[in-house]
């Protein structure tokens, strides 16, 4: 097996690993780095469970070759919690009963985060678009949309107070 070196920033930390040539970022995160929050739901790019953030954009880690991440900044759900404090999105998903089986939740939260990072005052349609590539089979989406809107509100409040 051909191993190749990859170097990228993962949740704020420099990471260098030898991985199997041609493997996906998803395989590297789960198999190599033990970061299991990134879920494998289809390996086709159609479910969104493996969504991560690369250089500020949502990406499907199942379709991203790990070697192409060299020099990039990768964020997984593990990177959202700082010193144990939950991100407002995580808080809003909890309080809004927006997770049931929880399998789509990491991808949903990251997809929503890229929206809120760019657009602090999203409309309902903006939220719908942001999660449009993420499949949820349990909730009917409604609580997820509400939770993202609530989190946006809280983030705006935080900024005001800061």
């Amino acid at each position, binding site marked *: *097996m051909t191993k190749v070196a990859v170097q990228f920033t993962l949740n704020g930390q420099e990471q260098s690993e030898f991985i*199997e040539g041609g493997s996906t970022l998803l395989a590297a995160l*789960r*198999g190599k780095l*033990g970061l*299991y*929050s*990134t*879920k*494998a*739901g*289809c*390996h*086709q790019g*159609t*479910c969104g*469970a493996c969504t991560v953030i690369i250089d500020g954009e949502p990406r499907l880690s199942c379709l991203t070759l790990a070697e192409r991440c060299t020099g990039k900044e990768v964020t*997984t*759900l*593990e990177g*959202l*919690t700082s010193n144990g404090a*939950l991100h407002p*999105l*995580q*808080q809003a*998903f*909890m*309080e809004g*009963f927006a*997770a*049931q*089986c*929880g*399998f*789509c*939740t*990491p991808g949903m*939260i990251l997809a929503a985060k890229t929206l809120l990072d760019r657009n602090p005052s999203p409309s309902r349609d903006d939220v719908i678009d942001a999660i449009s590539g993420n*499949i*949820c*089979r*349990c909730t009917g989406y409604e609580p997820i949309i509400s939770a993202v809107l609530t989190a946006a509100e809280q983030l705006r409040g935080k900024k005001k107070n800061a």
Partner: protein
Amino acid sequence: MEYRKEYFSDARREDLTEVGVTRQRSDVLGHVTGKTQYYADRTFPGLLHLKMVRSPHHHARIKSIDISKALKVPGVVRILSAKDVPQNIYTILCLIQVEPNDEPVLAFDKVRYKGEQIAAVLAESEQAALAGVAKVKVAYEELPAVFDVEEALKPGAPLVNEYHGRNWFTYEGHHCRRVRFGNVEEGFAEADHVIEEMYQSSPIEHAPTETTGCIVVPDQNERYACYSNTQALYFTLDNSALILNSPFHKLRLIGGTVGGGFGGKVDVITEPIAFLSAMLTRRPVKYEYTREEEMQVSSPRAAERIYIKDGVTKDGRILARKVRLYVDAGAYSRHSPYGTTKAAAHMPGPYTIPHVWVDCHCVYTNRTPSSAMRGFGVTIGDFALEVQMDKLARLVGMDPMEFRILNAYRDGDMKAHRKEVQGAALVECVKAAADLAHWPIGERYKAMSSEKREA
């Protein structure tokens, strides 16, 4: 979400403190931080990946299976076929005395649906296993296939499943599960209108975001632990032990945290072959459905065809209901004989009808075996019943809400399966929904109750 506490207010305990109140989900912190551990969120050194050789045909005789080239693919460790499986023929509901065993774990003489499992390729990586699968050569002789439930019941239809000897499941000597209550022909004769309608569904996928799968890990003491997302641990353990001819205590199932089930994870497909693979290689083995397998190979909700013939009076009383229901079980029983009985038990819906005749057929065809799904045996029946109810209401010129209230079952009524109604609440649900939707209903109907039938 609002409570309508005026209904059944005297039956409701008001002294509860821990139930009846919202508590935060105990698992939600894990969900929102990604720390919830699903079966696949583990790494085992030396893990082997299992990929399946599947039938490309709907119905065919297997003439030969050649694994020699596949064994030469770098990374391929072992390939299992039917002869490796101790008790290859099983049926999952043997645990509740459903007979006969009718399904091979790995097909050997025949394939009966497209996608059926034939040989399991074990390899060091998923890519190697997939490459191995591509190199297994199976020679087939295609057979005529049958896809329509009523065609399958006709004399001369291709025989799908030899273990049944006919294309239907036999219920205690009957070719279907039957319910007989009153005399429907009398009811039709008394009725002012008689209509017969046909309803049809097609198979539906559970589509959990986490696909079905498991990892089996041998321990140092000849026991095998299976991390699984099954919906029923003991069902899986017991069936696996029977298939493997293994003492039950050698097997252990660990699970309980599942990325969505909806009935799709009550079959026992991935675990027995993963157990066997771990036993034969003494290495951890993972068998996980791809999304494509989950959608086309794992059991869907059965397609159903339902004929409903009703006799109704001009003032809106249903006198007789005759139902012929066909469950498309696909090639094997799985849970369908059970679901078909459940469908029969559900008829004629939550209404009191003096004359009921029900025949529910569990039919074998050359498609992916169907199985349990949310609302098993009921969901499609409800679609048919409730569209039929709408047609009947319009036929007699009644408001559909009022028509339901009038015919709704009440406490003390006798159901078609001869069980007295208790705890009915359909009338109240209809009234509350009418209220919610600002749908006017007459005072006469508003006064009706599930607890007693009005004079």
